[in-house]
């Protein structure tokens, strides 16, 4: 069984790390990741850009595009897609297509800042 591990941290704190501090954290993380890769247990790894880069598509009819991250506490993160898009408009089109077949709730669109595809097969 695969497990998604979602990372939460205070963005203000992470954002105020210096380049060196950030690199040091990433370096330590990569050591942990390398071990999992060797064991064939690591799936895709993505670091998202800050929440300020997020756009939300409310799956209403017609879908409503909002700024900022999706932060409705009554709804929970149920899964995620990683899709290759040229720009935000293209990503929104994909989200609209998805929302047409799966209405209700919202999609948060967050650009990926760093991506490691991994090697594990489910």
């Amino acid at each position, binding site marked *: 069984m695969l497990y998604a591990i979602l990372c939460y941290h205070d963005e203000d704190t992470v954002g*105020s790390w210096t380049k060196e501090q950030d690199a040091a954290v990433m370096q330590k993380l990569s050591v942990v990741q390398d071990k999992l890769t060797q064991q064939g247990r690591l799936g895709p790894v993505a670091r998202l850009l800050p929440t300020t*880069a997020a756009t939300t598509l409310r799956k209403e009819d017609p879908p409503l595009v909002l700024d900022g991250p999706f932060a409705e506490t009554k709804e929970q993160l149920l899964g995620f897609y990683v899709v290759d898009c040229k720009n*935000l408009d293209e990503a929104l089109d994909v989200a609209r297509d998805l929302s047409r077949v799966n209405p209700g709730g919202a999609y948060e669109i967050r650009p990926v800042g*760093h991506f490691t595809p991994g090697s594990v097969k489910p």
Partner: protein
Amino acid sequence: MTDTAWIDAALTSARPQAVGALLRYFRNLDTAEEAYQNACLRALKSWPQNGPPRDPAAWLIMVGRNVAIDDIRRSKKQEALPDDAAISDLDDAEEQLAERLDGSHYRDDILRLLFICCHPDLPATQQIALALRIVSGLTVKQIARAFLVSDAAMEQRITRAKARVADAEVPFETPGAVERSERLTSVAAMIYLIFNEGYSASGDTAEIRSPLCEEAIRLARLLLRLFQSEPEIMGLTALLLIQHARAAARFDAGGAVILLDDQDRSLWNKSLIAEGLALIDKAMRHRRSGPYQVQAAIAALHARAETPADTDWTQIDLLYGALEIMQPSPVVTLNRAVAVSKVKGPQAALDMIEPLAQRLSNYFHFFGVRGAFLMQLGRNDEARTAFDRAIALANTSAEAAHIRMHLDRLQRDSQPRGKKSGK
């Protein structure tokens, strides 16, 4: 030690909120700053032992406030404790501190703090210095180094700025919607200036000034967190991110300027560019264009080009045209002329900038750009005159060195064909 790195990070990120709240309480910049510093000293003693508090900013505000009040009480004999009504606009401050700070206060405190630093009575240099001292917490020494002035001169500049702010009637009430958007504009301009101060550094001072760029980016991100749907703040942040992404490619080992065309694009910071592009993309969707968005869009077109030849100069020309309408300035026209020279050739560009000659008669870049167009047209003597003038007006040694390189090239080009350069 990396053990304390998390404390540094927590203190830095909590600073604007904590100083802002202390300022709201004490209504005096010096008292607020001192209270914050005292709270930081206590944090350095307490946090390594007890672990970080759940909300570092709230902790700092509460401790800072208590220490400052104790100080005031201790000197009570000399000075009466300020009237409760004068030091607080809150009905029950204790209750307020006990609960988690609410989002709107957080936003207004930081905005007020930034706004006070860019008080309209202060000249731009003092605004920037004050913001770096109060909001960013840079030491006077660091700021002085960044502005290439002595510590004493910078100390004086900041002291003067504080005195002026204290004299002026500073509004402490929560700003209304109109006022808030006015404040936002001046705060954005101040962040832009801080960035430019760092960006215009020449090679030998780049290491000293580049932290200014990073600080400006940090403040822009903060502002964007507070105003998540303002396309101009997205544009500003995108602009700074994309410009700063090129930092490593902008100067050679000797500190000389490397022009965009000649930069090693593999040195550009891809993650900063990715974030900048995502933000400008998002901003453009609002269909509420503004000068920062247009500048960011221009920067984005350069960033998207994998080689200089891939640059979409036609689009850049159009964007500069839009910028000329929004923010008419001879400098914008001069920049547009560079795009025009790529699309329509140097003669069209030269025709475009000739009318600016009088207004830009003391502007380094005018003569540098004019010389380059003349050189492309083979009018070498005129080009040489323009370059000579540019060198006389250069602000940094890197700028002068860059023009000298052009002159050397002219010299080289004219020699094989005999002594043609009789001036």
